[in-house]
């Protein structure tokens, strides 16, 4: 028996979530008395995974897998799980991994728990805690099948180094034409910016910024923090920012280490989307804005006046602490 993770990469480089997943897997494997195997697809330097406790890496190299394809990637993970006799398969909570996870679960007759936020509460029966009700509650889920699939919520475990010497092995799963029936015609990537999905820090703006012409001061703050920018629903509805930046129950979820909400009052649907973030800072003119009830730190004041000063002060802070 082993424990398998799919270590997600993009352009040959592992995503941070892959290292978080490996860290988590190492701890789960210890409690199960087993080892961690990772399967990688067209990744470069796989030895990086050993730093986070991976014992064995199955390396898949196949040009047909340069673009993510859920069915084909699910096939890769299923065949790797079968080869290793893995009883627990761990995936991240990226858009791609969540796309393929249910396919893997059906393929392996496995129970699937998504949005898992901590180590298993028990391994017999196998119980995990997961986010539910749009982060307004947790749900303890029991998985009753022999093989189990879990997806780990982002930033819910963190990175834990534990050196292992990973054995590397080439792996060539059999793929068939039907795996590629869904064809990727083109990919448009936002370049040069931190994406909400990858960001540890997110700076988000609402109607308090008064208009799209003021977005520059939010981007300046994001720049100095190395943050992604996001927005509230009214802002995307007004067309100031694209829908892809809308954070909330029907938009993107954000599980950042630091979430800075500027000029956002804090509708319940918005809060639900960011509740998994660790530290929340709110800047708003209205001292009674509901966002202050869930924030860790706050400033009552005008964003247009505060943001440029905050950006400048952070620049100075970064220079002093470089």
């Amino acid at each position: 028996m082993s424990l398998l993770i799919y270590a997600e990469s993009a352009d040959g480089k592992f995503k941070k979530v892959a290292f978080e997943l490996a860290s988590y897997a190492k701890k789960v494997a210890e409690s199960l008395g087993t080892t961690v195997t990772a399967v990688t697809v067209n990744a470069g330097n796989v030895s990086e995974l050993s730093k986070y406790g991976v014992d064995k890496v199955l390396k898949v190299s196949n040009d047909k897998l340069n673009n993510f394809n859920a069915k084909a990637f699910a096939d890769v993970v299923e065949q790797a799980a079968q080869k290793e006799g893995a009883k627990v398969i761990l995936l991240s909570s990226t858009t791609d991994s969540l796309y393929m996870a249910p396919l893997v679960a059906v393929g392996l007759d496995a129970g699937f728990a998504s949005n898992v936020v901590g180590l298993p509460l028990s391994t017999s029966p196998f119980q995990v805690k997961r986010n539910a009700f749009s982060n307004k509650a947790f749900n303890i889920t029991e998985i009753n099948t022999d093989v189990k699939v879990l997806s780990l919520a982002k930033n819910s475990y963190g990175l834990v180094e534990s050196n292992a010497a990973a054995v590397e092995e080439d792996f060539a799963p059999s793929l068939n034409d039907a795996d590629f029936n869904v064809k990727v015609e083109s990919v448009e990537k936002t370049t040069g910016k931190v994406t909400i999905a990858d960001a540890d820090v997110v700076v988000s703006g609402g109607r308090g910024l008064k208009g799209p012409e003021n977005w520059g001061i939010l981007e300046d703050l994001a720049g100095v923090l190395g943050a992604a920018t996001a927005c509230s629903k009214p802002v995307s509805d007004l067309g100031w920012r694209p829908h892809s930046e809308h954070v909330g129950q029907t938009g993107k979820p954000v599980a950042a280490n630091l979430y800075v909400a500027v000029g956002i009052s804090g509708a319940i649907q918005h809060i639900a989307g960011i509740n998994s973030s660790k530290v929340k800072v709110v800047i708003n003119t209205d001292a009674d804005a509901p966002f202050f009830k869930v924030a860790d730190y706050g400033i009552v004041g005008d964003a247009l006046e505060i943001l440029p000063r905050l950006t400048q002060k952070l620049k100075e802070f970064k220079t002093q602490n470089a």
Partner: protein
Amino acid sequence: MKILVCISHVPDTTSKINFVNGDTEFDTNGVQYVINPNDEFGLTRAIWFQEQQGANVTVVNVGGADAEATLRKALAIGANEAIRVNATPTDGFFVAKQLAEVAKSGGYDLIICGRESLDYNGGMVPGMLASLLDYNFVNSCAEITINGTSAKAAREIDGGKETISAALPLVIGGQKGLVEEKDLRIPNMRGIMTARTKVLTVLEPVAANINTKAVKFEKPAPKSAVKLFAADDLDGLINALHNEAKVI
């Protein structure tokens, strides 16, 4: 073209979330139920296909009799008929299995689900359904057009967008973008009256494994009060973020 829209009956997004019976059950007291918002985008898109391309739209829910009000709302919005699988939805696989049975007997070209329901947030039903049917599948689908027997779709990816083509039959996990929020349909009086006469079929469930079980619920620990800084004390905020919260 025949379209099946899978509808989850979920608490309104503003609902207070509480639990009863030793935190083993969701407290439905005073909770207003609605069409799952992700499904609502899909339903409106299906009605658009009905109006523009002559599609027939069936809505389906796996749930108890209380879900019929939600199905009637979908009929009032414009769906042609409704199906309720008479079972308490236990886990995502169970629901997917029931939907697969309905889909197989209906011969649908396009099956639209929401990418996740806003109660259990499992996000697994659309993919499991596609897998059980061996249909093509596009998740996080934010645009779709149909031309004959093929579909063009766009899917949100982390940091961008992908354009995809696939042959029908197709399952999508849909979301905002399938239609704009301002274009969401609300039932008018004529629709409400017509919905009363539309067919709502009740089917009994098929046997399915229960792979996962929700054994208990917890609410997040109460938060300590916000620490406020004066607008001219930005150093105080930066200091707190660096030394206390350790996030910068």
